């Protein structure tokens, strides 16, 4: 983080203006020509000692009430963040109120000029909210902040991963959805000062939040984005994401899904060399052989613990039985619980009972369609497997289909737009025209492209 810890105890340096003067600069910059802010206001704010932002004006007014968060966005930002950052801020609820007010009113264009300062807001707000024991207070305002700062919901900002991290730490996964469900497509390092870590961390934390909500398909998608990001070397974030990708893939699909083929080789290689245990565990899982999976699990359990993935791995182990039962539904119409227990590899005196519990669970969660009958005492009950009763012939299907078509069309349109953009770009045209040795060959070349 670029913001240095404010030096509260330091003395006010001679060259910095006092609070009134600073306020005058801030107020006079409002509505001034566009180059005033970067040339005059920002240097003044940056050079000012942090002590100044804690003072009141000479006539005893609080600068936060003097300044207008909409017109004096940057000035207000400096005051409010510095105040939230000191060790023991006064009037915490009041500060939170000021921050929330600021978030609702700030001018996004101006905020972008002081984005490094703006980026401190999530942590500041979360600190204040946790300080009074209500971390949840930080979440809603931050959603607003992101929505207001990002030009479109598809744009990534520096606030994104910081916000998701706060949601993860306070376990408010559902609140993250307002941001997470907008897929990031646009990245604008020039105007929003984001870097590649922003992209990686956002998708990594996002994947973890989706795991928290048990939406494994989305988690998988997010981790896959991290792993397949353009890379020259491997980032530690990518390795961690890859670990989780393997486990979630097993959990959701029962096998290791292939990564996009444009994934950089070096990322795959580094993972293979350092975390081979995960891949061997996945291989064992794909065989659906319970003993083999358990052996492999025992071998890599230490690694899982170290990586803090043990809980997830345990879920994967449990899912193995479900996976096996699902396999049985493809093969059998009826099967006794005893046979199920045997076929899926449950052992011990309670095997039949455990099998029944699993089947009941799976029926409840809609993973399989079956009925258990205890009419025949033999084998402790018979399970009849049914087909998926969804015949795709109701309005719901139609609505779903329609939504999907619209989604696909929208994506297709964006791709088309991008394609046109490339086709018209100078770089592309220059690249194409290099390949034309003489200008009169142009028609031939164009003919080749058709």
């Amino acid at each position, binding site marked *: 983080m670029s913001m240095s810890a404010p030096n509260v105890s330091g003395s006010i340096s001679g060259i910095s203006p006092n609070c009134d003067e600073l306020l005058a600069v801030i107020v006079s910059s409002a509505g001034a020509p566009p180059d005033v802010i970067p040339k005059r206001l920002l240097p003044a704010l940056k050079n000012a000692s942090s002590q100044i932002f804690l003072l009141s004006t000479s006539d005893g007014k609080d600068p936060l009430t003097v300044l207008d968060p909409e017109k004096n966005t940057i000035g207000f930002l400096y005051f409010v963040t510095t105040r939230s950052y000191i060790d023991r801020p006064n009037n915490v609820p009041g500060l939170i109120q000021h921050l929330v007010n600021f978030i609702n009113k700030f001018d996004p264009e101006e905020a972008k000029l002081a984005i490094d300062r703006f980026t401190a807001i999530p942590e500041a707000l979360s600190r204040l909210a946790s300080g009074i024991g209500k971390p949840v207070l930080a979440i809603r305002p931050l959603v607003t902040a992101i929505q207001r700062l990002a030009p479109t919901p598809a744009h990534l900002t520096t606030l994104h991963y910081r916000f998701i991290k706060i949601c993860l730490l306070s376990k408010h996964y559902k609140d993250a959805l307002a941001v997470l469900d907008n*897929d*990031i*497509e*646009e*990245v*604008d*390092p*020039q105007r929003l000062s*984001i*870097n*590649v870590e922003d*992209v*990686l961390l956002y998708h990594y934390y996002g994947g973890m939040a989706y795991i928290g909500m048990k939406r494994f398909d989305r988690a998988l*998608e997010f981790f*896959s*984005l991290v792993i*397949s*990001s*353009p*890379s*020259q*070397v*491997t*980032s530690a974030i*990518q390795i961690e994401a890859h670990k989780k990708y393997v486990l979630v893939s097993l959990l959701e699909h029962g096998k290791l899904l292939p990564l*996009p083929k*444009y994934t950089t080789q070096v990322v795959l290689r580094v993972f293979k060399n350092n975390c081979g245990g995960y891949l061997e565990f996945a291989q064992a899982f794909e065989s659906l052989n319970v003993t083999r999976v358990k052996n492999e699990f025992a071998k890599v359990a230490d690694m899982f613990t170290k990586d803090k993935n043990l809980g997830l791995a345990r879920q994967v182990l449990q899912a193995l039985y479900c996976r096996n039962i699902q*396999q049985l539904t*493809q*093969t*059998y*119409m*009826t*099967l*006794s619980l005893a*046979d199920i227990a045997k076929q899926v590899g449950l052992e011990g005196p309670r095997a039949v009972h455990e099998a029944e519990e699993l089947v009941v669970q799976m029926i409840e969660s809609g993973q399989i369609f079956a009925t258990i009958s205890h009419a*025949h005492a033999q084998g402790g009950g*018979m399970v009849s*497997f049914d*087909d*998926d009763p*969804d*015949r*795709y*012939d109701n309005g719901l*299907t139609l609505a*779903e*289909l329609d939504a*999907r*078509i619209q*989604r*696909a069309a929208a*994506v*297709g349109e*964006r*791709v088309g737009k*991008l394609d046109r953009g490339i086709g018209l770009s100078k770089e592309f045209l220059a690249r194409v025209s290099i390949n034309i040795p003489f200008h009169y060959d142009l028609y031939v070349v164009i003919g080749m492209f058709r």
Partner: protein
Amino acid sequence: MNDNLDANATKRKRTGKVTVDSPNNLDLDTYIANYKGHTKVDRLLFIADRCPALQIDAYRLAVGELKTGSLDSAKYSHAVGKLNDALIARGLAPQSLDAAWVEATQKRARAQTEKLESELKGYKNNMIKESIRMGHMELGDHFYNCGDLSNALKCYSRTRDYCTTAKHIVDMCLNVMRVSIELGNFSHVQSYISKAETAPEVQDKSLVQAKLRCASALANLDTNNQNKYKLAAKMFLETSFEITNNYSEVISSNDVAIYGGLCALASFDRAELKSKVMDNNEFKNFLELEPHIRELIHSFYHSNYKTCLEILENSKNDLLLDLHLHSHVEMLYENIRKKALVQYFSPFQSVDLNRMAASFSTDVRRLESELALLITDNQIQARIDSHKKILCAKQQDQRSHVFEKSLTIGTDYDKATRALLLRFNMVKADLVVRPPKEI
């Protein structure tokens, strides 16, 4: 040299060595009379190696064949050594090695080599293309006769530059193929087959074609292609009966019937079996030679699985003693059995497992797990009612299936495209994971 021979032998055995206690109805003398040249010896040695019951006879025949028909003294000594091992193991008196013959043969072989090489040199000086070709070929034949396969292959390949007519090319290809088959280098065989096939009109074309088909079928058997049995079967079925005893240095017409029949059975569906095998007049001639294979195919076609499986069981040991087919026997049998199971069930909506088990002479428990495997492999669209012991056809609802599939494809497209959009924009904005900057 002996090590070399052993290494050669082990290379061919991809699967573990199977020992056959007793052949089913293999008559060694009649069987081996169908072959001549190297394959005769190789087959004898192979049988001796695997079948203790026939070991002594097979070694004796091999030794006799080597002594009369070839200059391969190394192989002769090797075979005699093996024969004596076998004799001693059974407490019989060993047969002595004919050292005088070995020495004379070696001398003769050397003299012949020198003579042919000097002749070839002479031809080369005279620059007469045809003579050079003949010289190379004779030298190749000689090396082949001495068992020096790699040199033989070199000589045969060298004739290539001196071929002037289509016949020369075909001869060259056939020679190279013969040696390569013996060496087990089937990719080589494949490429020379295509060379020979592109040669323009030649005399007795159909015979040449037949030979090429057989070689190609053998080459197909050796590949790791999933469809290898189907391809091999097709080749054997296209083989003309003219081959009768004209390719016995590689394969006999009985082999064509057995190999072709089994491969076809393991890979063709019922309709293909009828149109390509049973109604194939050319192949009928082959089947006449091996009536049990004909009966096998007929019983399979007429859904008489019990007879079919019995015939298979009765000829298994013989096939395990076949030089080319032994490593494929298990696989072929498995495929045939699977196909029989699939075909048995195909006309029914539901089948009583007890009756099915009886038709396949097995018990319900085992049949159930066999069927479960087939269902998992998606070869039978059915489900087992383990309670009532019934196999029921799966009612695949095509409409639901299409819906399900298109929804998945739609989701995948959506995800992939969005991921690509992000990736594209990242590359465009130069957001790439880079090594940390050096400080």
